[in-house]
């Protein structure tokens, strides 16, 4: 199933919307084709002297979203690409984009479920695309998202997630705030994993995305809880 060559394409910024104090949603238009939920794209920026910087970003939008391809770009201190999006990029600007890329951390409604999604911080982004893909197709595949953030204000698209949990049959959300509220000091732990597994049943697919330590800890807990390693897909940022 080898793909054809993956070309660099021009993508126009169609919208920039802050979604948390540190993260902006950036929508790109003018792109043909679609993607599979969970995939990423690469962006390339070019300076007048020819210097180029490339970075990878997970896709947040559902496949085929008419509003364009949505990425969530965090204003990382000192990051040359993230600071371009934080401080310079405007609607109408063009960058180069390549992809979609990735054939492992992906889910489509026809892959079925139950599906357990576990995201830490901006690791929720590819999981958001899966949730949206599920809703777009009217799928009722059981899906449960455990989303761990330090504070509620850092949760990306919290209102959308809560509305989906309220309105979409078969989708449940566990939002964990590790530094405030009733769950301060708690992390995704054995009890939380077991509760989730009791709730949705034996998962056919588990997707874990976040920082390195988070993903390592959570995937070990999943294996300890009896989930088959082959059912668990992981993605870590900083990679």
């Amino acid at each position, binding site marked *: 199933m080898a*793909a*054809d060559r*993956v070309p660099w394409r021009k993508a126009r910024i169609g919208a920039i919307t802050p979604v948390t104090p540190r993260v902006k949603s950036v929508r790109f238009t003018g792109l043909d084709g679609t993607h599979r939920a969970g995939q990423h794209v690469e962006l390339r920026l070019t*300076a007048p002297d020819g210097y180029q910087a490339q*970075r990878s970003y997970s896709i947040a939008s559902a496949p085929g979203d008419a509003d364009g391809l949505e990425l969530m770009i965090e204003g990382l201190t000192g990051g040359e690409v993230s600071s371009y999006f934080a401080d310079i990029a405007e609607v109408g600007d063009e960058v*180069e984009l390549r992809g979609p890329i990735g054939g492992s951390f992906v889910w489509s409604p026809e892959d079925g479920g139950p599906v357990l999604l576990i995201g830490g911080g901006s690791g929720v982004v590819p999981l958001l695309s899966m949730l949206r893909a599920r809703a777009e197709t009217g799928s009722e595949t059981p899906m449960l998202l455990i989303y761990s953030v330090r504070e509620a204000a850092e949760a990306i698209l919290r209102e959308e997630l809560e509305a989906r949990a309220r309105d979409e049959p078969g989708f449940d959300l566990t939002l964990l705030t590790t530094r405030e509220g009733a769950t301060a000091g708690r992390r995704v732990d054995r009890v939380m994993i077991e509760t989730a597994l009791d709730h949705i049943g034996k998962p056919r697919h588990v997707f874990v995305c976040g920082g390195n330590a988070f993903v*390592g800890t959570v995937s070990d807990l999943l294996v300890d809880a009896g989930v088959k390693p082959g059912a668990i897909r992981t993605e870590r940022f900083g990679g």
Partner: protein
Amino acid sequence: MVTRGFTGRPPKADVAARLPPGQYLTEDFPVLQLGPTPRVTEETWSFTLRDGPRPLKSWTWAEFARLPHTRWKGDIHCVTKWSKFDTAWEGVSFDDILADVGIEPPTDFTLFEGFDDYTTNVPVADLRGGRAMVATSYEGKPIPPDHGGPARLLVPHLYFWKSPKWVKGLRFTRKDEGGFWELRGYHMYGDPWREQRFTGD
């Protein structure tokens, strides 16, 4: 295509000279893997060389430790864009593994396998002449599990997805057979200096 308003922060010339196109330097050591870290210890680890389905030889950890060991220090490059300089590894070179079996390679291609069932292909020519080893130590210590310990392949002149973690064996193949990523759009060879990230690059 110049990006309006972007200047970036190009690396200094000495760093830039060591970075393949599209890469940037990182000081930490990011972790990339498909799933959970498999539970492999020195007690349960073994390495098997096969010609197609036919086993040629297997080594336990203790047997492998008795083979001649090689050191290598240099730069590694991940297809996700990071490069890390001056990494120090020790292990058993492919040449010494072959010498221990006492054979010449039966084919020109190999497919490596990990304990997590990950696979990747590397041509025999890229393994010989001291260009590849099964590494059993990193920076003078056992390789941490999330970096592939107890043993991983090291083929540092190719993108790092060609250096599978928790390596459990290699199979000589008649044809150049793609592995996990190569069947999912990634390049069959993966030379960072020619920026062979994806099929057709």
